[in-house]
C-alpha cells in the first residue's frame, strides 16, 4: 500500500509528546557576526568599515547568508605625479578648484573622500547527496561607482567526500561616474581652469567575468589541501579617472617647466585578463592548533605577475582563548605601461600609468589576532596588523632633480579589527 501523505508534522507532534519535548520546533537561530575595521595609512587614506554578516539555516543543510558593509574613506591619495623642487599646482578632479603641493612632497590629492555601501546575498543549497549549489548576488554603491554582480558555483563531493570539485563563475557590471566627468585619457590637466579639463563623457562602464575551478582534497582526519585555478576578464573603462602622469623637462627633470609639460591623465588598456593559481594547505594538530599556509600566483596581460604567500598559526590557549600570529608577503612586477614619469618631447604612448598600485612593489603584512570562542553564543576577536608597501624609490630612469626625489614612497598602514559573533 502506498502512503501518499506527508506524515512528518503529525509524527513529530506525537514523538515530542512521547519524549516530553516542547512540540513547537525551535526556530533555527541566526548566526550573526559583527565587525568593525579601522585601516589607516600613515599620512594618507584612512577607512572605517563596519561589517555585519548573518547566516541562517533555512532548510535542511540549506543556508542563507547576508552581509552588509559600510566603508567610509577619508584622506589623501597619491595622484601618480612626481615631486618637484618647486610648488606644484593641480586641479581637483571636478576641475572647479586647484590645490598646491609643497616642494619635494609627493603629490597627494587631498580631496579624497568616499563612502561605500555593499550588500551581499548568498544562498547555499544541497541539490543532491553530493552536490551543493551556491548562488550569490552583490550590489555596491559608492559616490562615483556602482557595481552589481551575480555568481553561481557548484561543489561536487566524491571519493567518500574526501575530494570536492568546485566550478563557479561571476559576472560583474560596474558603472563609474567620475567627479566632474571622465577626463579624456592622455589629455593635459589644465590649470587655468578655462578652458576646462577635456572630458570623455560622464559615465563609464566595465564588465568583469570570473571563472573558477577548484579541488579540495582531504589528506587525513586533520589536514587538507586545496587548489584553485581562476580566470578573470575585464572589459571597458579600466582607468582610474583621478590618476595623473607627470611630463618632466628633459634636462632638469622638473614637471611644470613649460605649458607642454603639464601632467596628463593616465590611459590604460580597455581589457585585462588575469589567470591565477591558488593552493592552500591546512592542518589541525592533535591539540587543535591550526596551521594554514597558502600561495597564490597571478599573471595578467598587463604584464603584472604577482606572488602571495600567506601563513598563520592558531594557537589554542586555555578556556577558549586563542592567539593567531600571521604573515603575508606579496610581490608584483610592474605593468608594461607603468612609467614613473614621461619626458617632455618624447612621443606619448597610447597606454601609460603612474599609479603606484600598478608599479613594481612588495608588501609585507604582519599581524596577530587574539580571540575567545565558547563555540556557541559568544565569540570575539581583536586583530592587529601592520602593512608595509615598498617599491623602487630611486629608479635608474631618474635624472635631474628627480634623482633626489622619492619616486616611490613606502606606504605603511595599520589595521585594527574587532569582531563579535553571537546567535540570535
Amino acid at each position, binding site marked *: *500500500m*502506498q*502512503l*501518499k*501523505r*506527508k*506524515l*512528518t508534522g*503529525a*509524527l*513529530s507532534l*506525537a*514523538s*515530542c*509528546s*512521547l*519524549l*516530553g*519535548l516542547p512540540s513547537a*520546533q525551535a526556530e533555527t537561530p541566526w548566526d550573526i557576526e559583527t565587525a568593525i575595521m579601522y585601516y589607516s595609512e600613515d599620512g594618507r587614506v584612512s577607512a572605517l568599515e563596519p561589517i555585519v554578516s548573518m547566516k541562517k539555516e533555512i532548510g*535542511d*543543510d540549506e543556508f542563507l547568508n547576508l552581509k552588509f558593509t559600510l566603508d567610509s574613506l577619508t584622506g589623501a591619495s597619491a595622484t601618480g605625479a612626481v615631486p618637484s623642487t618647486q610648488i606644484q599646482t593641480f586641479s581637483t578632479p571636478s576641475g572647479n578648484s586647484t590645490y598646491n603641493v609643497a616642494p619635494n612632497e609627493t603629490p597627494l590629492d587631498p580631496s579624497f573622500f568616499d563612502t561605500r555601501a555593499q550588500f551581499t546575498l548568498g544562498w547555499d543549497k*544541497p541539490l543532491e*547527496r553530493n552536490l551543493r549549489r551556491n548562488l550569490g548576488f552583490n550590489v555596491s554603491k559608492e559616490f562615483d561607482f556602482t557595481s552589481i554582480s551575480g555568481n553561481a558555483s557548484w561543489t561536487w563531493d566524491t571519493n*567518500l*567526500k574526501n575530494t570536492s570539485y568546485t566550478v563557479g563563475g561571476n559576472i560583474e557590471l560596474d558603472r563609474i561616474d567620475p567627479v566632474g566627468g571622465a577626463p579624456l585619457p592622455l589629455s593635459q590637466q589644465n590649470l587655468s581652469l578655462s578652458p576646462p579639463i577635456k572630458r570623455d563623457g560622464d559615465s563609464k562602464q566595465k564588465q568583469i567575468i570570473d571563472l573558477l575551478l577548484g579541488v579540495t582534497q582531504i589528506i587525513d*582526519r*586533520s589536514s587538507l589541501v586545496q587548489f584553485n585555478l581562476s580566470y578573470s576578464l575585464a572589459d571597458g573603462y579600466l582607468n582610474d579617472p583621478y590618476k595623473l602622469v607627470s611630463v618632466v623637462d628633459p634636462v632638469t627633470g622638473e614637471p611644470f617647466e613649460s605649458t607642454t609639460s603639464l601632467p596628463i591623465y593616465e590611459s590604460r588598456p580597455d581589457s585585462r585578463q588575469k589567470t591565477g593559481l591558488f593552493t592552500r594547505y591546512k592542518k589541525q594538530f*592533535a*591539540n*587543535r592548533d591550526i596551521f594554514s599556509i597558502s600561495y597564490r600566483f597571478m599573471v595578467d596581460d598587463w604584464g603584472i605577475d604577482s606572488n602571495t604567500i600567506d601563513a598563520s598559526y592558531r594557537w589554542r590557549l586555555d578556556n577558549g582563548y586563542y592567539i593567531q600570529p600571521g604573515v603575508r608577503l606579496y610581490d608584483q612586477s610592474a605593468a608594461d605601461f607603468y612609467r614613473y614619469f614621461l619626458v617632455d618631447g618624447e612621443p606619448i604612448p597610447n597606454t601609460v600609468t603612474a599609479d603606484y598600485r600598478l608599479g613594481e612593489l612588495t608588501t609585507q603584512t604582519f599581524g596577530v589576532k587574539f580571540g575567545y*570562542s*565558547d*563555540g*556557541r553564543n559568544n565569540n570575539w576577536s581583536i586583530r592587529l596588523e601592520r602593512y608595509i608597501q615598498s617599491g623602487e624609490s630611486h629608479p635608474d630612469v631618474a635624472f635631474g632633480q628627480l634623482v633626489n626625489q622619492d619616486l616611490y614612497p613606502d606606504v605603511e598602514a595599520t589595521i585594527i579589527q574587532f569582531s563579535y559573533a553571537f546567535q540570535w
Partner: protein
Amino acid sequence: MSDFSISIDNQIGKGKFHCMASPCEVLIDSGDIGLAREITACAVAEARRIEHKFSRYRDDNPIYQINHSADKFVDLDDETERLIAFAFECYALSEGLFDITSGILRKIWRFDGKHSIPTQKQVDEVLPFIGLNRVTYENRRLKLPAGMQIDLGGIGKEYAVDRIAGLLRGQYEPGILVNLGGDIAITAERANKDPWHVGIEDPNRSQQASSSLKISRGAIATSGDARRCILHRGKRYGHIINPKTGWPTAGSPHSVTVIASTCTDAGIIATLAMLQGKYAEKFLQQQGLKFYCHR
C-alpha cells in the same frame, strides 16, 4: 564494574559499550576524560534501563506482563503508556503499516540466512493475530486478545537514543553524539561548529562505511536488511514485513537512512519507506527530510 571503555582521540571523548544487541558509542566534543567517563556511564545506565524495561526477551518487565495477559486489562506506567500511545499514533498515521503487534510474524519468517520463506498457508494462520485495531487501549490500560503480542523493537532503540540525548542535553554543555547501533542523535552543535561525520553502511559492502554524511544537529536512523534477509530461489526477502500481507514489500531498498529532528521520527519514516517498496524514494521526498536510499 564498568562495562564500557573510554578513550580520547583528537580532543574527542569516546565511550563504547554494547547494548540492545548492537555496538554503541557516545562521542563527546571535549578532551576531558573524566567527563567522558561520566557521560558514558549515564548513557549506558539509561540504555540498559530501557532495554530491560521494554525487551521482549525478559520475563520481568511490562512487555512480558502485557504479552501474557490474554484478554485481561493491564495497567500501564507513565513511560510505557507514552510509548503505547505513540505506537497507536503511528499505526493511524501509517494506515496500519506500522504495527507493534506484527512481531509474531517472526515465528514464520526466520531471518538467519538459512531458513526458506514461509508458505502462504503459514502466513494466513498468523495474520488473524496481527492488528493494533484489535487491541483495546483506554484509561491508561491495555487489553490484548489471546494469542496476540506486542513488540516495541521497532521504536525502542530510537526512543532510547532520543531519551539518552535528552538526558545528556540537559546536563552537559559540550556537543554529544549518541549512537546505538547506527541510530544517532546529537545533543548540541560542536564548539567549533564542525559537523560530526557519520558513516552510512552500504548493505552491499557491509564491512565498510560506503559514504559519510555530515551532521551538526538532529538525528539519524537507518532501516535496512543488510544482514537480515532471506535469499530464496534467487529472490531477496527483506526483514521488514508488511503487517497487512505478512510478506516483505517487493522492490524495497536495501536500506534507508533518514535525518530528522528526533531519532524516533527518523526511524518511523525509514521503516515506512522500506514498506513503500519501489515508491520508497517518492515517499521520502514527500516527507521533506534528508535521506539516503540504498538499492
